[in-house]
């Protein structure tokens, strides 16, 4: 039993290390002091209003949301094509192609960011949120492919043939049968890509040029101690939004499983 106890201590220590800093975010976001330290000095919502009235935050947020929405939609669309192709067709070089698509998953983002920067500068593309979208599509697509491949693979091939047999065209079969059945996968892919893009820093920092995005903006504000509490307030809101998004993603994944009568074998989350 001794071993059991030390394992439990390890697990608790791990969780504390992982989540305590995140829990400190709201604590100091509501603390009535510019200094981030204990003891706490009182409750305030000033930091939230300060953040709220900061025009730069709104610009950065708008840029980040634009990037995240575009990147998640594009990556998921590519993911649908790639997953469908890998599930349905056999072609020479398929293994290599799928491997290359998945590679950015293990490639350091720094390298992606650097090489993109070099190429974009060489070609003469001005840096903006569009170049960030490009980079984010690159790093989000492997996640989309991974999620969607499992969604497509769990589809019984004969469902498609049955619809075709009953008079539908390949296009209407895709719309009536395949799409609804992989929809939970599509939604989780969208949400996860959105989250990844929203808090991505390196690529956003390298490729945004003069445009501000949220992650880079927050980092830049940490240079001014007086701005830190307002950033913690912003962080608190982001944590809440992330939790909501991931919960929705998981909800759709589970509903998809329940709807098709499958068994939950553990999800992406």
């Amino acid at each position, binding site marked *: 039993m001794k071993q059991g106890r030390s394992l439990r201590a390890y697990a608790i220590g791990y969780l504390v290390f992982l989540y305590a800093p995140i829990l400190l975010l709201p604590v100091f976001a509501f603390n009535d002091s510019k200094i981030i330290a204990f003891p706490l000095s009182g409750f305030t919502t000033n930091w939230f209003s300060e953040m709220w009235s900061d025009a730069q935050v709104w610009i950065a947020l708008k840029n980040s949301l634009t990037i995240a929405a575009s990147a998640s939609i594009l990556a998921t669309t590519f993911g649908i094509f790639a997953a469908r192709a890998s599930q349905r067709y056999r072609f020479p070089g398929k293994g290599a192609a799928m491997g290359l698509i998945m590679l950015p998953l293990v490639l350091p983002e720094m390298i992606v960011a650097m090489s993109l920067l070099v190429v974009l500068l060489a070609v003469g593309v001005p840096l903006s949120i569009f170049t960030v979208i490009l980079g984010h599509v690159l790093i989000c697509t492997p996640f989309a492919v991974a999620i969607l491949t499992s969604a497509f693979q769990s589809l*019984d091939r*004969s*469902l498609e*043939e*049955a*619809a*075709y*047999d*009953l*008079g*539908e*065209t390949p296009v209407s079969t895709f719309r009536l*049968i395949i799409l*609804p*059945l992989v929809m939970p996968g599509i939604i989780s892919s969208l949400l996860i890509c959105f989250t990844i893009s929203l808090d991505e820093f390196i690529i956003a920092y390298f490729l945004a040029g003069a445009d501000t995005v949220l992650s880079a903006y927050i980092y830049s504000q940490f240079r001014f101690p007086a701005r830190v509490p307002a950033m913690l307030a912003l962080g608190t809101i982001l944590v809440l939004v992330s939790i909501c998004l991931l919960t929705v993603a998981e909800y759709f994944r589970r509903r998809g499983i329940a*709807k*098709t*009568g499958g068994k939950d074998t553990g999800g992406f989350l």
Partner: protein
Amino acid sequence: MSDAKTMIEFRDVHKYYGDYHALRGISASIRAGEFFSLLGPSGCGKTTLLRTIAGFEGIDKGAVLLDGKDMADVPANKRPTNMVFQSYAIFPHLSVEENVGFGLRRDPRSKTEKAAAVAEALEMVGLKGFGKRAAHALSGGQRQRVALARALILKPKVLLLDEPLSALDKKMREQMQVELIKLQRQVGITFVLVTHDQEEALVMSDRIAVMFEGEIAQLADPETLYRRPNSKKVADFIGTMNFIPCQVLSESGGQIEVDAKGLGRVALSPDQCPPGNGDTAMVGLRPETLTLLYPGQTTAERTVEGLVDEVIYFGDMTYYDVYLGGTDVEVRLSMRNVPGRPILEVGSKVDVAWSPSALVLFR
């Protein structure tokens, strides 16, 4: 039946998967309104052949004709066939009635007419009142029925069934066999069934094509197939058959005389002698065509002495393995266990009655 028109015709159909020759010159016709089965061991190409009718599989040579029309350029969604898949392929995100009515989407009839058609189809398969249920919450047998109703609602010229009963347990399977036969008689649609279960094929079919390795070995009605298999392979695949070495003594005008080991000289009529394959000559006898004679019993048939070597009790039947007439030829025979008929012991000396007309010559 024999004057019914041809519904499906295969003309020298060949199909390759890469280098693998999956269908090797299939030629056959299936009649309108017939219950036709494709029977064969795993991997012999039954599913492939069925899928060439549905249009899911193209062919490399030959032609498939449906109701007299060449189907070469007709895609699956335009063919007058519908399929019941082995996995049933019930759309899991739709209700039972949405599944059944799926094929009516392009039907110009009004909503109420379509709803009535769905209700009628559900009633036909014994699922009245199940329309609103979620399809994924059904049992195997119920899914099977939904798949049937969904395929039949379009009133296809041909219904294709790929091992539709193999996922059901034995009881359910037997029940569904009977229901399928009834259903087929009721709707009068040509059914083509794929199965690897010889009993199922014998019970259900008007005619059966036995397939081995991409070829049709024999196409006949169940009785002919059982009583007059045209090769050892078919005989072995369908039921049990005793093979007894023999020598062909004479052949004149179709009449063939053989000397079968243990049985002696027998004259065979032409229908007992399918064309030879160049194998060593053997005569075949089904176990139930052999009878043990109990003391005091007599028979008009020919008899041979035997020695019981093995007794296998099966409840309603007993199987005996018997050496014939002092030879090393052992045959299996089956006796129904009726009152007053004792079960013999190993080592008993018995008389075995057999009928020359039950023999088939393989060579």
